[in-house]
């Protein structure tokens, strides 16, 4: 791993960029610790913490027993002691045992103590499907976290932005859940990692277009870009918006997209009912009703448990489903 960063241009995987972000944050802040299951000696299931323990020692980067609730609670206690934590839950569903600690304390503690103690806690969760994983390894848990007042939630869709968002999350004085699209860990991008990219709360337009805005985040962003390319044949010029930050949402960007295109389609893997698309649709209706030429479309996972590997493709939004929804919006 490089000791220096932000300097030379190179090819990054998302896993590598996140690893670099942790490395740089640990080097920068002596009161930052990284802990969780298998993050130390082994370097993590997805190699995101690879080499950190040998670089910073077993007191700064350590393995814990299999006790997710205690891992989250430990981060809260460390905050009282003036320490900043990055904790990892090995897979999406394995963050659920800690939900009580996260909802009752991580999210509420600063308010509970009237601001006297900040909760600079970053919760890393490899999330979403697409890797032919076993059950409980392909869940999209964002709704549980986004609905919980007191948390911030970000989802990188590319290596360089992964570096930025993770660094921003760690630097943030508030608890931030970072949902890492595990299907994109090995996706490559060439560039210089740094903090120039926008911060938490700001989305970005990855493809310009005025006929329809396709809004998504995480692994689905690439599928949306593919759909936008396919839509060209149908003479549709689609804009692709990467939300990046699910909480807080970039309301201004959503409104701009709705106003400029009049047609919005939201895409995510999570089940439809109360998935992010519901909130995006409701906000756009609140803030840009008169500009809507068509109802905000939702291309999502279905209201069923995440399916086994063989049915993943049928469950996750596909280029075809996205194109169909975009065309429906355009032709509405």
């Amino acid at each position, binding site marked *: 791993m490089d000791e220096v960063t932000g300097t030379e241009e190179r090819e990054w995987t998302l896993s590598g960029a996140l690893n670099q972000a942790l490395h740089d944050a640990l080097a920068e802040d002596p009161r930052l610790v990284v802990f969780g299951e298998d993050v130390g000696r082994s370097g993590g299931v997805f190699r995101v913490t690879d080499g950190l323990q040998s670089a910073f020692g077993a007191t700064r980067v350590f393995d814990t027993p299999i006790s997710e609730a205690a891992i989250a*609670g430990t981060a809260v206690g460390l905050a009282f*002691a003036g*320490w900043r934590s990055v904790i990892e839950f090995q897979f999406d569903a394995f963050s659920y045992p800690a939900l009580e600690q996260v909802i009752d304390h991580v999210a509420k503690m600063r*308010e509970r103590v009237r601001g006297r103690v900040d909760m600079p806690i970053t919760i890393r969760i490899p999330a979403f499907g697409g890797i032919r994983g076993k059950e409980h390894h392909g869940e999209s848990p964002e709704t549980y976290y986004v609905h919980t007042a007191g948390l911030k939630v970000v989802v990188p869709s590319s290596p360089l932005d992964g570096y930025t968002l993770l660094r921003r999350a760690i630097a943030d004085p508030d608890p931030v859940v970072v949902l890492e699209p595990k299907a994109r860990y090995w996706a490559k991008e060439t560039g210089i990692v740094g903090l120039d990219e926008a911060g938490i709360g700001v989305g970005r337009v990855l493809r310009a277009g005025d006929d329809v805005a396709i809004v998504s985040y995480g692994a689905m962003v690439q599928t949306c870009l593919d759909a936008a390319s396919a839509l060209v044949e149908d003479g549709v010029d689609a804009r692709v918006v990467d939300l990046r930050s699910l909480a*807080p949402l970039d309301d201004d960007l959503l409104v701009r997209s709705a106003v400029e295109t009049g047609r919005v389609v939201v895409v995510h893997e999570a089940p439809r009912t109360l998935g992010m698309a519901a909130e995006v649709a409701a906000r756009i209706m609140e803030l840009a009703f008169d500009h809507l030429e068509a109802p905000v479309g939702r291309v999502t996972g279905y209201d069923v448990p995440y399916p086994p590997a063989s049915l993943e493709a049928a469950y996750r939004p596909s280029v075809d489903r996205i194109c169909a929804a975009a065309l429906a919006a355009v032709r509405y």
Partner: protein
Amino acid sequence: MRLISPDGSEAGDTDVGLNSEALRDMLRRMIIARRLDRECIALQRQGELTVYPGFEGQEAAQIGSALALGADDFVFPTFRELAAALVRGVDAVQYLQYHRGTWHGGPYDPRATRFGPICIPIATQIPHALGHAVGQQLDGLEACTLAYFGDGSTSEGDFHEAANMAGVFGVPLVLFCQNNGWAISLPTGGQTAGEIWSRAQGYGFPGVRVDGNDILAVYAVTRDAVERARRGDGPTLIEALTYRIGAHSTADDAGRYRADAEVEAARSLDPISRYRTWLIGAGHADQDFVVGCEVEADTFAMEVRAGVIATPAPPVEWMFDWTFAAPSEGFQRMRREALGG
């Protein structure tokens, strides 16, 4: 472990290294705490406080353990440790803002008092204490963290996960269980078929059971655990056997599930009368001292009552002021919406 019998006679070596003044102070604090507890129940009945969980009968367990801590140590309490809070220097009126319904678990400053926020979700404060102890270990401090919890709390996963992890990390943590015989309507026998103190063995550190109504014994075992922790010898689990004389809270009717006879029997084990008898018998104090404490307790209770009643409702802005250290523009918009209308 017991040093003073229920009848006030010595049951062990009562020289725990405290001089007469310190020994008198223990009685004084217990008398004041009980008086305040009863005042709080009255305040609740009069509508000045929301539901209030009394601690009568547990004064020795709370005060004896809290007195064994130093200024650098830190406490994570449940919702029933007002007596311990007073020992830590928490302002009673501030503390009672919680039960007044004007703020959440931390109306006082947890850092200044080194007394964590009042915690209601059972056992969830134990992992916080673990984390704080991990921080003390990282900082190489000669200090420890003490977590209070009840018998019922030991059935929660959080107790287990935190205790086990504390054993693995060998952090300076004191797990202090007040086994007051009940968890709302469930007697300890319905909570576990084992003995709470004996759980420690399975986590690789010592567990000890103490007569929780014997303040000297509680002080002694807690001090030993605190010293062990500060020495770097790791956690200790203390089970203090005491009794919840009152109902679970002012909203609870213990008559539905508990026999009066049991409560009467428990009164004969009262921590205050026992200690008073011993203290006077041993010549550390006289009747006048006791009367003085009672007068002080009355005055204090009246001051706290006045302070509580004088507390106004918080402004609506408070609902938004501390959720985030770095709130978003959208959050501020919602704040303005709420305050505007």
